[in-house]
């Protein structure tokens, strides 16, 4: 009897112990393909930076939620004057930076002065050029005046590029980021992982997770094995070709959502023969979107006919502007003086969608006499050759910035499109705050650049996340770059 009793006790203890072990974990390990070059989102364009820090370590005055809508961030409320030129923000109370220093209106002023300074290396500086002055009213109130109305201003404040930093720590943010977010930076093992821990004194609602690591795994096969072995709990974007491994596996959930990544066959409009409209139209006719989407994204991409995200309310479907038609393409080429076609180079960055699309496009273009030489490049080389020096004929790249149609109004941009009509329209669009009018303007630009066949419009990149089936709260769509940890939690 005694023995039975102690056995029962032992059993109960064991059950309790296993029960504790099974208790909900509060840690997560996320696999990401690219390691960020640094961790300061206000000083670099790399998406990999935002994946780690956006809304986790750093917060902005506003934040973008998973539907792409603007929500209050460090600014809990704001009023806008009638003329749309002056924004008065009320700041959250009791906010501290991870190093213990307090957050107030001076930090906001510092952030935007740093962003707009002449020596600023902010990747999206141009988005904030409308800011005329940042005035501190009192420690909890700040006023930003614009030189012209800016319909996207509140959205732009929510980008990773405009997160609030402190004068005490801003210079070290590249290596040791210090923000106001729910997670504080712990350590960065270069080449391996970044570890974040919940920040105890966080001012807002506490997240469920206490610890998060981002593990860098660039190879798809390794990522597959890490997921299957449980070495990582999920990844926000998994290679679509191997997604079938996890579909139908009850231990995992596959989240397919949209992103802001317009994938285009970027064309050097400033260089012959691509400066001829008929040549670009011919190439547009020779693009077989269906095959490219199947071949490069395994059917997960969404076809686009212009530089605009299909899930955006301003979107207009222009995929039939130049339908796949090799005969029309040949006729156009002959009309432009290239009856035998021509040779060109296609420089490809090291991402699967670009490399695969490149091979498929080269095979299609060969049928109309356009012989493409494929040149595979590493990121650094691509950024220098193509993006900075504009030394390219064609390239394939995904533009992941939200609402980035404004790049077509910049004649100095790498694809060299110079159209005063688009530039004027874009200026009007930027200065318009009325939704209906903005929609009309944005659609006009979409139509013009589609008709001009500025670039070959291929598809909108999908976000294909693979997660442990017991995880919830991940963003299915990616309306902005980032993997926001706040709502992620384990369930039984």
């Amino acid at each position, binding site marked *: 009897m005694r023995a039975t009793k102690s056995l029962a006790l032992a059993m109960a203890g064991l059950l309790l112990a296993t029960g504790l072990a099974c208790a909900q974990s509060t840690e997560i390990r996320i696999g990401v393909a690219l390691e960020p070059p640094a961790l300061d989102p206000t000083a670099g364009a790399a998406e990999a930076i935002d994946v780690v820090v956006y809304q986790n370590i750093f917060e902005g005055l506003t934040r973008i939620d998973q539907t792409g809508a603007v929500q209050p961030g460090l600014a809990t409320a704001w009023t806008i004057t009638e003329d749309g030129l002056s924004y008065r923000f009320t700041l959250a109370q009791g906010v501290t930076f991870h190093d213990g220093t307090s957050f107030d209106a001076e930090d906001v002023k510092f952030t935007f002065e740093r962003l707009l300074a002449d020596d600023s290396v902010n990747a999206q500086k141009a988005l904030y050029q409308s800011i005329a002055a940042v005035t501190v009213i009192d420690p909890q109130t700040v006023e930003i005046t614009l030189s012209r109305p800016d319909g996207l201003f509140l959205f732009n404040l929510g980008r990773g590029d405009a997160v609030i930093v402190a004068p005490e720590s801003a210079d070290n943010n590249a290596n040791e980021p210090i923000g106001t977010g729910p997670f504080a930076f712990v350590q960065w093992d270069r080449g391996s992982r970044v570890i974040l821990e919940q920040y105890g004194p966080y001012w807002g609602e506490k997240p469920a997770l206490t610890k998060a690591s981002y593990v860098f795994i660039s190879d798809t096969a390794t990522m597959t094995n890490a997921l299957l072995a449980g070495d990582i709990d999920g990844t926000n974007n998994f290679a679509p070709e191997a997604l079938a491994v996890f579909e139908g596996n009850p231990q995992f959930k596959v989240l397919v959502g949209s992103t802001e990544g317009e994938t285009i066959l970027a064309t050097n409009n400033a260089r012959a023969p691509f400066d001829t409209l008929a040549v670009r139209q011919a190439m547009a006719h020779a693009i077989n979107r269906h095959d490219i989407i*199947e071949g490069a994204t395994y059917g997960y991409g969404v076809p686009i006919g212009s530089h605009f995200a299909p899930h955006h309310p301003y979107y207009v479907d222009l995929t039939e502007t130049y339908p796949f038609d090799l005969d029309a393409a040949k006729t156009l080429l002959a009309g432009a003086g290239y009856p035998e076609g021509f040779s060109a180079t296609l420089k490809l960055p090291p991402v699967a969608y670009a490399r*695969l699309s490149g091979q498929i496009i*080269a095979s299609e273009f060969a049928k109309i006499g356009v012989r493409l030489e494929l040149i*595979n490049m590493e990121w650094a080389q691509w950024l220098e050759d193509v993006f900075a020096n504009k030394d390219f004929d064609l390239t394939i790249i995904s533009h992941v910035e939200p609402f980035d149609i404004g790049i077509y109004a910049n004649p100095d941009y790498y694809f060299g499109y110079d159209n005063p009509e688009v530039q004027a329209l874009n200026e009007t669009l930027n200065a318009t705050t009325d939704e209906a009018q903005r929609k009309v303007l944005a659609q006009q630009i979409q139509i013009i650049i589609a008709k001009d066949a500025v670039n070959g419009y291929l598809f909108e990149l999908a976000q294909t996340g693979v997660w442990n089936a017991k995880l919830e709260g991940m963003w299915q769509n990616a309306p902005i770059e980032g993997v926001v940890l706040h709502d992620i939690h384990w369930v039984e």
Partner: protein
Amino acid sequence: MNWRRLLDHPSLALGLAATLAFALLGLASLIWTPYPIADIAISRRFLVPDASHLLGTDHLGRDMLSLIMAGTLTSFTVGAAAVAIGVGIGVPMGLVAAMWGGPVDWVAMRISDLAFAFPSVIIAILIATLIGPGATNAIIAIGIFNIPVFARVARGGALALSSLDFIGAARLAGLGKAAIAWRHILPNIMSLIIVQGTIQLSLGILAEAGLSYIGLGTQPPATSLGLMLRDAQSLFLIHPSLSLLPGLAIVLIVVALNIAGDGLRDALDPRLRRQELA
């Protein structure tokens, strides 16, 4: 040595036959493949083997048999060209070192040490940054790696021969060092070089596969066995045949070449032959 004697070595016959079969398969791709290898058709991808595609199709709808044929040719071409570089530079270097000796020998051997010290992958990365990746780059990188190997084989062979009587006789007859090396030593170390050549060919094919796999060798739309492996890697759990076929081809070619190399050494090496007789 006659051809009948060759057949006394069954492993040699087997190795040579298999190597020849693969070489012919590769050469055939020059004039004919079932489908053009650059012919991409997404609608027919991941087909299982059937009458129209004997080995199925890959992730871009290309015919696997055609790809294996073209890939084998690339592998053999790169391997053979690299051996040619090694023989063309390494053998004269080794002979010069052996015949002239002294400081010449020292300099030649230190150059070969230096070339040995750089793994071919490092050389390939260097060349890729200088002139861009490609099959030529792989040939040069592997070729550089081959030079010291052949230099040592030639030097060793030549030193072993140089004390023999017929070399002394040639010297007495007034032949210069270069002439002795060319007329008397080279023919006698030829068997060593041929044996080493087959081994280096198999190593070269492996190295080419490795370089293409890490993206420094053959570039699309051309193909090689290593590049096929690279493309198929992430699909291994879903379509294992895409990686198994090129992998198997590499293994078979390398094993065949090694068996052929071993057999050739048995058949050609006079020292081993003498042991056999004893």
